[in-house]
């Protein structure tokens, strides 16, 4: 008899054990508090303009540099200097409640202004491009799995680099419901039993499908590519219908993601990747719906997590910021520092994370970009240390190689 997943489960049941029980036995004694902690990482691809996400409307040079893109009239105020983009209403409400903060001048160590290099560095966690072929979240899972049961899940049809690597991770995206116990999946598991790529991936995919049936917020997701908000024409104002559809989908995606995290054996670590932040032209019209999508996703996560929100930390980051000055086509070009968002029910009080370099001409990086005052890895390391209990040695070497000088940010949660 071939040992399929169904027969394996049956065999375990015959010994009066469940796989779940055996797993818990093996990890008994782990601090129950840490085991409840969750981390969500949202990647905004394309170079999200930090000066639009968290406009420094109180900086005296902001309006002059940003001209038609300046948002001082409509932005949602945070303090005397900073505000949030008018699309970020749910995030703003969380910030008012002390459950969201900004790191307004943060960057990876990469300075090439190439999307692809910078995304590689952002996700690999290496000090330079091609410094690591796996992602820092994957290595985090690897380190934690040696201590307790930890699972990671990426949302979307493809796995982002940050979760790729030797530690197994699941992936899920909206679609038709699959019965993992049907005949074809059982036969295929047999056909894949010696396949190092397809075997583990398929088994995890089926397990996640089973979990999805209870995690779904309400019924099926809209049949659209969930992580790609629709693209309006630059400057268009009559596309609010598409934007609304996108926001509804994003909210549901957030809720469903939260549903996975609340399952008894659900993932503690989540990666979500959003596209479309490369706004070289007509930025105002392009960015508003995308930020509305991001905001709705975060709103859905917050709502869906309910009582678990207090144990959750969400990081939102991008590969680089954009030029401090508006360019010739109503947009901005590739720059350096941008804004990261930090959200969660257990945030400690505090203002901005990192220092504000100001927008004075003399303070700009290469007379062009917002200058970074905080290494992205410092934020990530701080989050992993305080939220997931990782110690400095692992953070400085395995998870973020050659990063001793990027000290973890303290006081997040």
């Amino acid at each position, binding site marked *: 008899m071939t040992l399929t997943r169904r027969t394996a489960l049956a065999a375990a049941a015959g010994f009066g054990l469940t796989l779940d029980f055996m797993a818990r036995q093996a990890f008994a004694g782990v601090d129950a508090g840490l085991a409840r902690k969750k981390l969500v990482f949202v990647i905004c*691809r*394309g170079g999200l303009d930090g000066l639009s996400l968290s406009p420094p409307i109180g900086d005296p040079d902001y309006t002059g540099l940003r001209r*038609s893109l300046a948002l001082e009239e409509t932005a949602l105020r945070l303090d005397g200097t900073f505000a949030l983009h008018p699309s970020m209403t749910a995030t703003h409400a969380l910030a008012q409640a002390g459950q969201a903060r900004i790191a307004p001048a943060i960057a990876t160590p990469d300075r090439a202004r*190439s*999307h*692809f*290099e910078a995304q590689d560095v952002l996700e690999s966690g290496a000090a330079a*491009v091609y410094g690591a072929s796996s992602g820092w979240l994957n290595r985090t899972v690897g380190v934690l799995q040696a201590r307790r049961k930890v699972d990671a899940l*990426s949302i979307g*049809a*493809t*796995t982002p680099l940050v979760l790729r690597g030797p530690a197994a991770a*699941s*992936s899920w*995206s909206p*679609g*038709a419901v*699959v019965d993992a116990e049907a*005949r*074809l999946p059982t036969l*295929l598991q*047999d*056909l*894949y039993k010696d*396949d190092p*790529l*397809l075997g583990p*991936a*398929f*088994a995890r*995919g089926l397990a*996640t*499908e089973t979990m999805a049936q209870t995690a779904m917020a309400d019924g099926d997701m809209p*049949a*659209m*590519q969930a992580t*790609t908000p629709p*693209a*309006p*024409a*630059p*400057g*268009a104002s*009559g*596309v*609010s*219908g*598409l934007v609304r559809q996108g926001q509804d989908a994003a909210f549901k995606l957030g809720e469903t993601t939260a549903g996975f995290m609340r399952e008894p054996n659900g993932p503690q670590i989540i990666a979500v990747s959003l*596209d*479309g932040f490369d706004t*070289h*032209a007509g930025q105002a019209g392009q960015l508003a719906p995308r930020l509305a999508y991001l905001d709705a996703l975060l709103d859905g996560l917050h709502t869906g997590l309910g009582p678990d929100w207090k144990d959750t930390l969400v990081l939102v980051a991008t590969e680089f910021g954009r030029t401090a000055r*508006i*360019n*010739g*086509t*109503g*947009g901005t070009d*590739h720059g350096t520092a941008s804004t990261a968002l930090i959200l969660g029910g257990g945030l400690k009080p505090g203002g901005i994370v990192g220092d504000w370099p100001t927008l004075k001409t003399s303070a700009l990086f*290469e007379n062009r970009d917002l200058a970074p005052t905080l290494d992205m890895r410092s934020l990530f390391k701080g989050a992993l240390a305080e939220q997931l209990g990782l110690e400095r040695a692992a953070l400085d070497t395995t998870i973020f190689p050659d990063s001793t000088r990027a000290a973890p940010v303290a006081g997040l949660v």
Partner: protein
Amino acid sequence: MTDPDLDAAIAITRFGLGARPGEIAAARGDPRGFLKAQIRREGADQPEGDGATAQQRIVAFRDYQMARQQARKAGEDPKTADANDPVKLAQKLIREQTGGDFLARARLGAQTDAGFRERWTLFWANHFTVSATKLQTATLVGPFEQEAIRPHVFGRFADLLGAAETHPAMLLYLDQATSIGPDSPAATYFKRGPQRGVGFGPPRPPAGMPKGLNENLAREILELHTVGVNGGYAQADVTEFARAMTGLSIGGPREDAAYTGLPVFRDQAHEPGARTVLGVRYPAGGKEQAGAILADLAARPQTARFVCTKIARHFVADDPPPALVDRLQARWMATGGDLAQVAEALVTSPEAWQATQAKFKTPYEFLVSGYRAAGAAPTDIGVLAPILNALGQKPFSAPSPKGWPEEAEAWAAPDAIVKRMTWAQRFTAKATAGRDPKALAADALGARLRPATALAVARAESRPEGFALLLMSPEFQRR
């Protein structure tokens, strides 16, 4: 000592788009010759779409935008006036035109006898990605491939590069169309000019929007299309190249109607002066300035290295054999970037014929090869688009100018494998009426069919189940 049965299977499944029934047998006599015969000067095949040109599509899109503006001016609420509902109109344009173009391309892929020629073409279309993720370019990806890519895939790289970078779809996708020299006469005029029609034509940006340089296309040409990110350029080279390209744009509504939607060069918008890119000084001039920079970029050895590495990665392995890259690069340099010669070098390089299946099929490759295995072709974009969306490869919508990823890890996510299976179940339920799955398996994989898969297919409890097992088998998922 090569095995003609295995080589025939490799020729069709690795270099081509998968086997239609009988195709592997047809290649058995001379697998390499079978591929070489597909290389031809006149370029790739053209899909049988509606034949619309990029110019026609741009004009239609501008008409649509103007109708919308007029509706707004006339006080109609665009959301309630159904005939002018912008969301519905835009969705209709994309469904009919973009969807139609994509279906035509997928049908060509499913039916062509020259699978290598089509794969070679898809490689170049991905190298010079234009994506429908921008509404302005959503209906132009098909015409871009037909006009800028397909005619040049077996010509000189310099000609392909020139055709791709100056095509209206690329000019819009990477924001070149609105880039203006900051010290050009046009910029000066915009700064102090009156708010009415402009005699020399550049479309007037909305009031309050600065008029000047956009460096997006210049950067991506260097980083993605020619020398590559390690090609030795700096920010100053990007900016200088962007300045040199100013003036290159698309004919607008205030210009000679014959040029509407076509590439134009406006001297008045060109940044005056000499430029220095990668250490070479280019004297002041008009469009020949950017033309000379492009020609020099095409000829650089870094470009040959970067592009030949990508070719080897696409055809053979995510981590390609260095000897193969060397061989391709040597042929490229010896022939001045003659892509027919490079293609010939690829199909005659021993490193490209290794038995190991190192490439995992992308969703598009998987679906097209599935149709080919069934001897069928897609007929409904409404069936094809949703599965490609679900698998992460939305039609004509690469996520960035870098194009679709190559690596197996990007496509073999757990969720994606499950979704491939659900597609295979639905597809085979219709595609197998009266067919013998065992014969389909032998036809689809030839000598690459493993005994375990052949056994599973033979033991299947139904024809659709047998065919689905074939499509989902490890050796069909790879190439």
